[in-house]
Protein backbone atom coordinates (compact mmCIF):
# COMPACT_ATOMS: atom_id res chain seq x y z
CA UNK A 1 0.00 0.00 0.00
CA UNK A 2 1.35 3.36 -0.98
CA UNK A 3 1.14 5.36 2.25
CA UNK A 4 2.11 8.70 0.76
CA UNK A 5 -0.49 8.33 -1.94
CA UNK A 6 -3.11 7.28 0.62
CA UNK A 7 -2.50 10.34 2.76
CA UNK A 8 -2.60 12.65 -0.20
CA UNK A 9 -5.85 11.15 -1.47
CA UNK A 10 -7.35 11.60 2.00
CA UNK A 11 -6.15 15.20 2.04
CA UNK A 12 -7.78 15.78 -1.32
CA UNK A 13 -10.99 14.15 -0.09
CA UNK A 14 -11.01 16.32 3.05
CA UNK A 15 -10.38 19.44 0.98
CA UNK A 16 -13.25 18.59 -1.36
CA UNK A 17 -15.69 17.88 1.46
CA UNK A 18 -14.49 20.70 3.70
CA UNK A 19 -17.88 22.25 4.48
CA UNK A 20 -19.69 18.95 5.04
CA UNK A 21 -17.06 17.44 7.34
CA UNK A 22 -16.38 20.59 9.36
CA UNK A 23 -20.11 21.22 9.70
CA UNK A 24 -20.79 17.71 10.99
CA UNK A 25 -17.70 17.77 13.20
CA UNK A 26 -18.81 21.07 14.73
CA UNK A 27 -22.27 19.62 15.38
CA UNK A 28 -20.82 16.61 17.18
CA UNK A 29 -18.43 18.67 19.31
CA UNK A 30 -20.97 21.38 20.07
CA UNK A 31 -23.44 18.73 21.26
CA UNK A 32 -20.76 17.46 23.65
CA UNK A 33 -19.83 20.82 25.17
CA UNK A 34 -23.50 21.77 25.66
CA UNK A 35 -23.49 25.54 25.62
CA UNK A 36 -20.28 26.13 27.54
CA UNK A 37 -18.68 27.32 24.31
CA UNK A 38 -20.59 28.92 21.47
CA UNK A 39 -21.03 27.04 18.18
CA UNK A 40 -19.13 29.77 16.31
CA UNK A 41 -16.25 29.47 18.73
CA UNK A 42 -16.12 25.68 18.27
CA UNK A 43 -16.33 26.03 14.51
CA UNK A 44 -13.47 28.53 14.45
CA UNK A 45 -11.24 26.23 16.52
CA UNK A 46 -12.10 23.19 14.42
CA UNK A 47 -11.54 25.08 11.13
CA UNK A 48 -7.99 25.81 12.29
CA UNK A 49 -7.41 22.19 13.27
CA UNK A 50 -8.95 20.91 10.06
CA UNK A 51 -6.79 23.12 7.87
CA UNK A 52 -3.70 21.94 9.73
CA UNK A 53 -4.70 18.25 9.46
CA UNK A 54 -5.16 18.66 5.70
CA UNK A 55 -1.78 20.36 5.45
CA UNK A 56 -0.09 17.54 7.39
CA UNK A 57 -1.78 14.85 5.28
CA UNK A 58 -0.91 16.50 1.98
CA UNK A 59 2.68 17.08 3.14
CA UNK A 60 2.50 20.60 1.86
CA UNK A 61 5.17 21.86 4.23
CA UNK A 62 7.25 20.54 7.11
CA UNK A 63 6.01 23.09 9.66
CA UNK A 64 2.45 21.79 9.55
CA UNK A 65 3.02 18.92 12.02
CA UNK A 66 4.59 21.26 14.59
CA UNK A 67 1.82 23.81 14.20
CA UNK A 68 -0.81 21.12 14.55
CA UNK A 69 0.57 19.83 17.86
CA UNK A 70 1.00 23.39 19.16
CA UNK A 71 -2.60 24.30 18.26
CA UNK A 72 -3.88 21.07 19.76
CA UNK A 73 -1.89 21.61 22.98
CA UNK A 74 -3.22 25.13 23.28
CA UNK A 75 -6.79 23.94 22.70
CA UNK A 76 -6.47 21.14 25.27
CA UNK A 77 -4.98 23.46 27.87
CA UNK A 78 -7.87 25.85 27.31
CA UNK A 79 -10.36 23.00 27.81
CA UNK A 80 -8.60 21.91 31.01
CA UNK A 81 -8.72 25.46 32.40
CA UNK A 82 -12.40 25.86 31.48
CA UNK A 83 -13.26 22.74 33.46
CA UNK A 84 -14.11 20.31 30.65
CA UNK A 85 -13.75 16.63 31.45
CA UNK A 86 -10.96 14.62 29.79
CA UNK A 87 -13.57 12.67 27.77
CA UNK A 88 -15.17 15.84 26.43
CA UNK A 89 -11.76 17.14 25.43
CA UNK A 90 -10.66 13.94 23.69
CA UNK A 91 -14.02 13.43 21.98
CA UNK A 92 -13.52 16.84 20.40
CA UNK A 93 -10.76 15.27 18.33
CA UNK A 94 -12.13 11.73 17.95
CA UNK A 95 -15.45 12.89 16.54
CA UNK A 96 -13.62 13.93 13.37
CA UNK A 97 -13.43 10.20 12.59
CA UNK A 98 -17.17 9.91 12.96
CA UNK A 99 -17.78 12.94 10.77
CA UNK A 100 -15.56 11.55 8.00
CA UNK A 101 -16.81 7.99 8.38
CA UNK A 102 -20.36 9.04 7.70
CA UNK A 103 -19.19 10.30 4.30
CA UNK A 104 -16.92 7.40 3.33
CA UNK A 105 -19.06 4.58 4.76
CA UNK A 106 -20.68 3.88 1.39
CA UNK A 107 -17.56 4.02 -0.74
CA UNK A 108 -15.44 0.92 -0.03
CA UNK A 109 -12.53 2.16 -2.16
CA UNK A 110 -11.73 4.89 0.43
CA UNK A 111 -11.20 2.34 3.26
CA UNK A 112 -7.34 2.51 3.31
CA UNK A 113 -7.50 6.31 3.27
CA UNK A 114 -9.95 6.32 6.14
CA UNK A 115 -7.75 3.89 8.04
CA UNK A 116 -4.70 6.16 7.78
CA UNK A 117 -6.74 9.20 8.84
CA UNK A 118 -8.13 7.18 11.74
CA UNK A 119 -4.63 6.37 12.96
CA UNK A 120 -3.61 9.99 12.75
CA UNK A 121 -6.68 11.10 14.70
CA UNK A 122 -5.92 8.50 17.38
CA UNK A 123 -2.44 9.95 17.80
CA UNK A 124 -3.87 13.44 17.99
CA UNK A 125 -6.40 12.24 20.58
CA UNK A 126 -3.62 10.86 22.77
CA UNK A 127 -1.71 14.08 22.34
CA UNK A 128 -4.80 16.00 23.48
CA UNK A 129 -5.06 13.86 26.54
CA UNK A 130 -1.42 14.41 27.45
CA UNK A 131 -1.69 18.16 27.07
CA UNK A 132 -4.92 18.11 29.05
CA UNK A 133 -3.45 16.24 32.01
CA UNK A 134 -0.29 18.37 31.95
CA UNK A 135 -2.45 21.48 32.14
CA UNK A 136 -4.51 19.98 34.97
CA UNK A 137 -1.38 19.12 36.95
CA UNK A 138 -0.15 22.67 36.47
CA UNK A 139 -3.46 24.01 37.78
CA UNK A 140 -3.25 21.76 40.85
CA UNK A 141 0.34 22.82 41.54
CA UNK A 142 -0.62 26.50 41.22
CA UNK A 143 -3.57 26.04 43.52
CA UNK A 144 -1.59 24.35 46.27
CA UNK A 145 0.98 27.15 46.14
CA UNK A 146 -1.79 29.73 46.30
CA UNK A 147 -3.43 27.88 49.19
CA UNK A 148 -0.18 27.78 51.13
CA UNK A 149 0.16 31.53 50.73
CA UNK A 150 -3.48 32.20 51.49
CA UNK A 151 -3.39 30.12 54.61
CA UNK A 152 -0.71 32.16 56.33
CA UNK A 153 -1.69 35.81 56.53
CA UNK A 154 0.02 38.05 59.04
CA UNK A 155 -2.22 40.88 60.21
CA UNK A 156 -1.51 43.97 62.23
CA UNK A 157 -3.77 44.30 65.28
CA UNK A 158 -2.31 47.43 66.76
CA UNK A 159 0.74 49.58 66.43
CA UNK A 160 3.45 47.11 67.47
CA UNK A 161 1.14 44.10 67.72
CA UNK A 162 0.77 41.58 64.90
CA UNK A 163 -1.24 38.37 64.71
CA UNK A 164 -1.05 35.15 62.72
CA UNK A 165 -4.40 33.38 62.54
CA UNK A 166 -3.56 29.77 61.73
CA UNK A 167 -6.18 27.71 59.94
CA UNK A 168 -5.72 24.05 59.13
CA UNK A 169 -3.26 21.39 60.10
CA UNK A 170 0.26 22.51 60.89
CA UNK A 171 3.03 20.51 59.26
CA UNK A 172 6.73 21.23 58.98
CA UNK A 173 6.46 22.96 55.59
CA UNK A 174 3.69 25.27 56.76
CA UNK A 175 5.34 26.03 60.09
CA UNK A 176 8.48 26.99 58.24
CA UNK A 177 6.46 29.35 56.04
CA UNK A 178 4.56 30.80 59.00
CA UNK A 179 7.79 31.29 60.93
CA UNK A 180 9.52 33.05 58.05
CA UNK A 181 6.55 35.30 57.37
CA UNK A 182 6.06 36.13 61.03
CA UNK A 183 9.73 36.98 61.56
CA UNK A 184 9.89 39.05 58.37
CA UNK A 185 6.81 41.00 59.41
CA UNK A 186 8.26 41.56 62.88
CA UNK A 187 11.36 43.05 61.31
CA UNK A 188 9.56 45.18 58.70
CA UNK A 189 6.85 46.54 61.00
CA UNK A 190 9.07 46.79 64.08
CA UNK A 191 6.33 45.13 66.12
CA UNK A 192 7.43 43.69 69.45
CA UNK A 193 4.40 41.58 70.18
CA UNK A 194 3.04 38.71 68.11
CA UNK A 195 -0.12 36.70 68.72
CA UNK A 196 -0.33 33.22 67.22
CA UNK A 197 -4.01 32.30 67.04
CA UNK A 198 -4.67 28.58 66.76
CA UNK A 199 -8.48 28.67 66.77
CA UNK A 200 -8.47 27.13 63.30
CA UNK A 201 -5.99 24.37 64.09
CA UNK A 202 -8.07 21.20 64.49
CA UNK A 203 -5.68 19.22 66.68
CA UNK A 204 -2.55 20.02 68.63
CA UNK A 205 -0.24 17.08 69.04
CA UNK A 206 3.36 17.00 70.21
CA UNK A 207 4.63 17.77 66.71
CA UNK A 208 2.42 20.84 66.28
CA UNK A 209 3.36 22.02 69.77
CA UNK A 210 7.03 21.58 68.90
CA UNK A 211 6.50 23.71 65.79
CA UNK A 212 4.75 26.41 67.82
CA UNK A 213 7.50 26.46 70.43
CA UNK A 214 10.15 26.84 67.72
CA UNK A 215 8.29 29.78 66.20
CA UNK A 216 7.96 31.47 69.58
CA UNK A 217 11.61 31.05 70.47
CA UNK A 218 12.71 32.36 67.06
CA UNK A 219 10.50 35.44 67.58
CA UNK A 220 12.02 35.90 71.03
CA UNK A 221 15.51 35.91 69.52
CA UNK A 222 14.41 38.90 67.45
CA UNK A 223 13.24 40.61 70.61
CA UNK A 224 9.50 40.08 70.24
CA UNK A 225 7.16 38.47 72.74
CA UNK A 226 4.67 35.86 71.58
CA UNK A 227 1.28 34.89 72.91
CA UNK A 228 -0.60 31.80 71.80
CA UNK A 229 -4.35 32.34 71.68
CA UNK A 230 -7.46 30.49 70.61
CA UNK A 231 -6.97 27.39 72.70
CA UNK A 232 -10.25 25.49 72.71
CA UNK A 233 -11.31 23.28 75.64
CA UNK A 234 -10.71 20.11 73.63
CA UNK A 235 -7.26 21.26 72.61
CA UNK A 236 -6.42 22.27 76.19
CA UNK A 237 -7.33 18.77 77.38
CA UNK A 238 -5.18 17.16 74.68
CA UNK A 239 -2.24 19.42 75.51
CA UNK A 240 -2.42 18.54 79.19
CA UNK A 241 -2.89 14.81 78.65
CA UNK A 242 0.05 14.71 76.23
CA UNK A 243 2.15 16.47 78.86
CA UNK A 244 3.12 19.34 76.57
CA UNK A 245 4.72 22.24 78.44
CA UNK A 246 4.46 25.70 76.97
CA UNK A 247 6.84 26.96 79.66
CA UNK A 248 6.74 30.71 80.16
CA UNK A 249 4.85 31.36 76.93
CA UNK A 250 1.59 33.16 77.64
CA UNK A 251 -1.49 31.33 76.40
CA UNK A 252 -4.95 32.86 76.15
CA UNK A 253 -8.41 31.57 75.35
CA UNK A 254 -9.24 34.18 72.75
CA UNK A 255 -7.53 36.62 70.43
CA UNK A 256 -9.20 39.46 72.37
CA UNK A 257 -7.52 38.35 75.60
CA UNK A 258 -4.17 38.14 73.84
CA UNK A 259 -4.59 41.65 72.42
CA UNK A 260 -5.52 42.96 75.88
CA UNK A 261 -2.35 41.39 77.29
CA UNK A 262 -0.23 42.87 74.51
CA UNK A 263 -1.69 46.34 75.10
CA UNK A 264 -1.12 46.04 78.83
CA UNK A 265 2.50 45.05 78.28
CA UNK A 266 2.93 48.02 75.95
CA UNK A 267 1.65 50.21 78.79
CA UNK A 268 -1.65 51.01 77.07
CA UNK A 269 -5.12 50.95 78.55
CA UNK A 270 -8.49 50.80 76.82
CA UNK A 271 -10.97 53.19 78.45
CA UNK A 272 -14.60 53.97 77.55
CA UNK A 273 -15.10 57.29 75.78
Amino acid at each position, binding site marked *: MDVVGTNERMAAFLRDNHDKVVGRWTDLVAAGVRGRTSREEVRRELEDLYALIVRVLSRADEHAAGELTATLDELSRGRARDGFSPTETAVGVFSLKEAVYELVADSAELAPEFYSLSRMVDDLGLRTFEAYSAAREQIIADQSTAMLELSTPVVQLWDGVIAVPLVGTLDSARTQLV*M*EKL*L*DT*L*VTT*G*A*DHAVIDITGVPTVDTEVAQHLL*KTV*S*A*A*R*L*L*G*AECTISGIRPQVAQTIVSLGIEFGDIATKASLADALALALRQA*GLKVVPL
Partner: protein
Amino acid sequence: MERVPILKIGQTLFVSIQIDLQDESVIRLQEDLADELAATGAHGVIIDITAVEIVDSFIGRMLTTIGSISRLFDAETVLVGMRPAVAITLTELGLSLSGVRTALNTEKGLEILNGKS
Protein backbone atom coordinates in the same frame (compact mmCIF):
# COMPACT_ATOMS: atom_id res chain seq x y z
CA MET B 1 42.11 38.44 62.40
CA GLU B 2 39.65 41.29 62.38
CA ARG B 3 38.79 42.97 65.65
CA VAL B 4 35.35 44.22 66.52
CA PRO B 5 35.45 47.76 67.95
CA ILE B 6 33.72 48.52 71.26
CA LEU B 7 32.26 52.01 71.64
CA LYS B 8 31.33 53.56 74.96
CA ILE B 9 28.27 55.78 74.92
CA GLY B 10 27.39 57.03 78.39
CA GLN B 11 26.95 54.01 80.62
CA THR B 12 26.51 51.68 77.65
CA LEU B 13 29.02 49.75 75.60
CA PHE B 14 28.02 49.49 71.96
CA VAL B 15 29.34 46.69 69.77
CA SER B 16 28.35 46.59 66.11
CA ILE B 17 29.50 43.46 64.34
CA GLN B 18 30.09 44.30 60.69
CA ILE B 19 32.19 41.30 59.71
CA ASP B 20 31.63 37.62 59.11
CA LEU B 21 32.26 36.23 62.54
CA GLN B 22 35.20 33.89 62.94
CA ASP B 23 35.72 31.91 66.13
CA GLU B 24 38.88 33.87 67.03
CA SER B 25 37.14 37.22 66.49
CA VAL B 26 34.38 36.24 68.90
CA ILE B 27 36.83 35.03 71.55
CA ARG B 28 38.78 38.27 71.13
CA LEU B 29 35.56 40.27 71.41
CA GLN B 30 34.70 38.46 74.62
CA GLU B 31 38.10 39.31 76.12
CA ASP B 32 37.99 42.92 74.96
CA LEU B 33 34.47 43.34 76.31
CA ALA B 34 35.45 41.95 79.72
CA ASP B 35 38.41 44.36 79.87
CA GLU B 36 36.24 47.27 78.81
CA LEU B 37 33.49 46.45 81.33
CA ALA B 38 36.04 46.25 84.13
CA ALA B 39 37.64 49.53 83.07
CA THR B 40 34.50 51.59 82.51
CA GLY B 41 31.97 50.04 84.89
CA ALA B 42 29.30 50.27 82.16
CA HIS B 43 25.80 49.08 83.04
CA GLY B 44 24.72 47.81 79.66
CA VAL B 45 26.04 46.18 76.52
CA ILE B 46 24.34 46.41 73.15
CA ILE B 47 25.50 43.96 70.50
CA ASP B 48 24.20 44.85 67.05
CA ILE B 49 24.16 41.88 64.71
CA THR B 50 22.13 43.42 61.86
CA ALA B 51 24.93 42.69 59.41
CA VAL B 52 25.53 39.12 60.57
CA GLU B 53 24.13 36.62 58.11
CA ILE B 54 25.66 33.38 59.35
CA VAL B 55 25.95 32.00 62.85
CA ASP B 56 26.95 28.57 64.04
CA SER B 57 26.50 26.83 67.36
CA PHE B 58 29.87 28.06 68.64
CA ILE B 59 29.04 31.70 68.02
CA GLY B 60 25.58 31.19 69.48
CA ARG B 61 27.11 29.79 72.63
CA MET B 62 29.69 32.59 72.81
CA LEU B 63 26.88 35.17 72.70
CA THR B 64 25.35 33.50 75.76
CA THR B 65 28.78 33.47 77.42
CA ILE B 66 29.21 37.18 76.74
CA GLY B 67 25.84 37.72 78.42
CA SER B 68 26.92 35.75 81.49
CA ILE B 69 30.24 37.59 81.73
CA SER B 70 28.53 40.98 81.48
CA ARG B 71 26.14 40.03 84.27
CA LEU B 72 29.16 39.41 86.56
CA PHE B 73 29.98 43.09 85.99
CA ASP B 74 26.33 43.99 86.76
CA ALA B 75 25.72 44.89 83.13
CA GLU B 76 22.82 43.71 81.02
CA THR B 77 23.39 42.48 77.48
CA VAL B 78 20.92 43.20 74.70
CA LEU B 79 21.31 41.55 71.31
CA VAL B 80 19.70 43.71 68.64
CA GLY B 81 18.82 43.43 64.97
CA MET B 82 18.91 39.69 64.51
CA ARG B 83 17.87 38.62 61.03
CA PRO B 84 14.96 36.17 60.68
CA ALA B 85 17.17 33.59 58.97
CA VAL B 86 19.66 33.77 61.84
CA ALA B 87 16.85 33.37 64.39
CA ILE B 88 15.54 30.30 62.56
CA THR B 89 19.05 28.80 62.43
CA LEU B 90 19.61 29.33 66.16
CA THR B 91 16.22 27.81 66.97
CA GLU B 92 16.94 24.79 64.80
CA LEU B 93 20.26 24.44 66.65
CA GLY B 94 18.30 24.43 69.89
CA LEU B 95 19.86 27.64 71.20
CA SER B 96 17.51 30.06 72.90
CA LEU B 97 20.25 32.40 74.17
CA SER B 98 19.00 32.40 77.74
CA GLY B 99 20.43 35.20 79.83
CA VAL B 100 20.69 37.54 76.86
CA ARG B 101 17.89 39.96 76.12
CA THR B 102 16.95 40.66 72.54
CA ALA B 103 15.39 43.62 70.75
CA LEU B 104 14.34 44.34 67.20
CA ASN B 105 16.62 47.34 66.76
CA THR B 106 19.19 49.46 68.56
CA GLU B 107 16.59 52.02 69.64
CA LYS B 108 14.48 49.39 71.40
CA GLY B 109 17.62 47.88 72.86
CA LEU B 110 18.52 51.23 74.44
CA GLU B 111 14.98 51.54 75.80
CA ILE B 112 15.37 48.18 77.53
CA LEU B 113 18.65 49.25 79.08
CA ASN B 114 17.18 52.56 80.21
CA GLY B 115 14.35 50.69 81.89
CA LYS B 116 11.63 52.13 79.70
CA SER B 117 10.12 48.77 78.87
